[in-house]
């Protein structure tokens, strides 16, 4: 076990520590930070915006860069939360609660420093777990037949569409709509063109890049270009001002340990991203603290715990994504989409067929986190200045780069109109309070799900009994059903309680 671990590590280092791959990683982290630090622009938008750039890179380089973008954007969102008191994105909302009060007390530098330390610790825990568990899970998954994949995908889809804030039924409806949109294009089994209505450009289906950018970036711009903007708290960010006191360190140690454990566990489960685990970590720290009254007024534990939790979860979220090819959330689904664009079929064969890509990517996660520390501790002043760029100049730039990015993937104007259509759809869905994330997840997983579903029933000669006879399949389907019923029940209860079910993030925003 240990020798295998070291072998994998050295293979990964060999692959990741080349000048080109280090450069891709750095560019990814830097651009991710750049987009993520802007209010309202989260990892999903950052990844969709930068997906076109990776189109023409080699597979390993592209994945390394996208992972860097994810880490960078996730991190940048927290910086924005602490300095502006506005969540950079939903997952970073928790940083507002104690980070912003600290910034107002002139301790913003310390908050940012501790966030950096906690995030690095959390990421390291997540990455080590990923390295340990990925080979085990892969070995297990090699025995899976199509029915297991079918059931696990369904579990992932239902989890992601029901564990949200809104109605689980609407979430499932959006997931189904996504599956339906994924059908557009050529059927792999028969070669028949489905739902393309005579449009030649649709024979490969909708472009993932155009769709993701339309749903996230364009919708966000329409929604927020007239929002009132605040400017960051004015204060010094010299290295000395960022140094936490011994008391700060002592108080952050426990929360970081607990947070990373919690995050690692929840990160590996489907549908739990988007800050749910971080809120739980915050609640636990508040409950176990000797001075809970300080929470919400600048308690450093309120940053250390959730931040470690969030980043440990980022690492473990890659476990099911990379080993089974089953993503737990939309970001992981986009990663899988990028892998497919590179011509690599997601699943356990990634680790066996492309070990250099797999281990190189994981080692690059760690390198990316080192870049994050370098970019964010000495260079924090740069991001603070970036926060003072008026939004009036940013949003036309986002619209423009979205258009050019989409166009550049295939040099085809048709994709720009697809972008437009999904931008409008995303905005309509926002108005009608339908969630976009399950739609994207359904779209990405749709073709694979159909393939496994058809193969399952072909092998069983049309008998549905196969879904209850195979133990893993049956358990996964039972959990799926249980999760759906539970979330409908919980939602009904929340509905009758009315406003009581709102998360603290809504108040903070």
């Amino acid at each position, binding site marked *: 076990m240990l020798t295998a671990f070291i072998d994998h590590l050295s293979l990964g280092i060999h692959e990741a520590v080349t000048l080109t791959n280090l450069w891709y990683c750095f560019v990814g982290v830097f651009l991710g930070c750049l987009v993520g630090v802007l209010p309202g622009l989260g990892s999903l938008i950052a990844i969709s915006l930068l997906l076109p750039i990776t189109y023409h890179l080699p597979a390993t380089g592209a994945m390394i860069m996208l992972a860097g973008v994810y880490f960078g954007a996730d991190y940048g969102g927290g910086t924005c939360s602490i300095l502006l008191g506005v969540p950079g994105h939903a997952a970073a909302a928790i940083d507002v609660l104690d980070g912003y009060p600290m910034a107002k007390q002139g301790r913003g530098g310390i908050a940012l420093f501790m966030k950096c330390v906690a995030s690095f610790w959390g990421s390291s825990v997540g990455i080590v777990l990923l390295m340990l568990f990925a080979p085990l899970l892969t070995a297990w998954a090699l025995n899976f037949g199509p029915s297991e994949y079918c059931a696990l995908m369904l579990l992932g889809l239902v989890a992601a569409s029901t564990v949200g804030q809104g109605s689980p039924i609407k979430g499932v409806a959006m997931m189904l709509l996504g599956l339906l949109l994924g059908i557009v294009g050529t059927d792999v089994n028969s070669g028949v063109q489905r739902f393309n209505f005579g449009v030649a450009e649709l024979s490969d289906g909708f472009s993932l890049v155009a769709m993701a950018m339309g749903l996230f970036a364009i919708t966000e711009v329409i929604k927020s270009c007239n929002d009132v903007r605040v400017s960051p708290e004015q204060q010094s960010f010299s290295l000395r001002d960022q140094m936490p006191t011994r008391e700060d360190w002592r108080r952050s140690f426990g929360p970081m340990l607990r947070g990373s454990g919690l995050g690692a566990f929840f990160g590996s489960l489907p549908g739990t991203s988007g800050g749910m685990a971080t809120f739980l970590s915050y609640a636990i720290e508040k409950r176990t603290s000797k001075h809970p009254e300080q929470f919400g007024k600048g308690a450093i534990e309120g940053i250390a715990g959730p931040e470690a939790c969030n980043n440990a979860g980022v690492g473990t979220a890659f476990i099911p994504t990379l080993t089974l090819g089953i993503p737990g959330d939309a970001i992981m689904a986009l990663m899988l989409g990028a892998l497919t664009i590179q011509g690599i079929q997601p699943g356990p064969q990634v680790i066996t067929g492309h070990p250099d890509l797999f281990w190189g990517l994981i080692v690059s996660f760690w390198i990316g986190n080192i870049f994050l520390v370098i970019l964010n501790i000495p260079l924090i002043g740069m991001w603070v200045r970036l926060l003072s760029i008026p939004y009036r100049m940013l949003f036309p730039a986002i619209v423009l780069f979205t258009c050019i990015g989409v166009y550049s993937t295939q*040099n085809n104007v048709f994709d720009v109109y697809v972008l437009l259509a999904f931008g409008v759809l995303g905005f309509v869905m926002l108005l009608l309070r339908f969630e976009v994330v399950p739609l994207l997840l359904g779209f990405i997983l749709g073709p694979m799900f159909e393939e496994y579903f058809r193969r399952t029933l072909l092998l069983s000669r049309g008998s549905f009994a196969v879904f209850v006879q195979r133990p893993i399949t049956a358990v996964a389907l039972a959990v799926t059903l249980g999760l759906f019923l539970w979330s409908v029940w919980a939602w009904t209860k929340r509905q009758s309680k009315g406003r009581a079910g709102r998360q603290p993030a809504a108040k903070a925003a």
Partner: protein
Amino acid sequence: MKKVDARDLIGGLALVAIGVFAALYASSNYQVGTVAHMGPGFFPAALGWILAAVGAVIVLIAFRAPIHALKPPPFELRPFLSVVFAVAVFGLLVERLGLIPTTIVTVAVASVAERSFRLRKALILGVILAVLAWLIFTVGLQMTLPAFASLD
């Protein structure tokens, strides 16, 4: 107090329509086959009916739901239209005029979204972004799009 939730009503009805359409279109245009040997129409047809059923549930809930806690964002026509037009203008012009003129027009149209829109400021921003876009995409990423294209 019970009210009809207009958003769920519209959304649910739209989903029913999409689902029924997809199911009928798939089963009349593509071979459905049997469960053991599914044709290209089987999966979309089944999916369409399920979507229609879920849509119908949403419509039913719309009639029973209390007023929601989460307020939707207010609808503003101006940013919606200007962003939509900006993307459309980009699509229409990019291959006819080239990157730089298209960028300036797109940025100017998108800028109208903001209430304090000033044409001069928008044009200056457009020129800056055009140079930036040219540097990043044409020079840096070697995109084949010309900076200026002749009208034909």
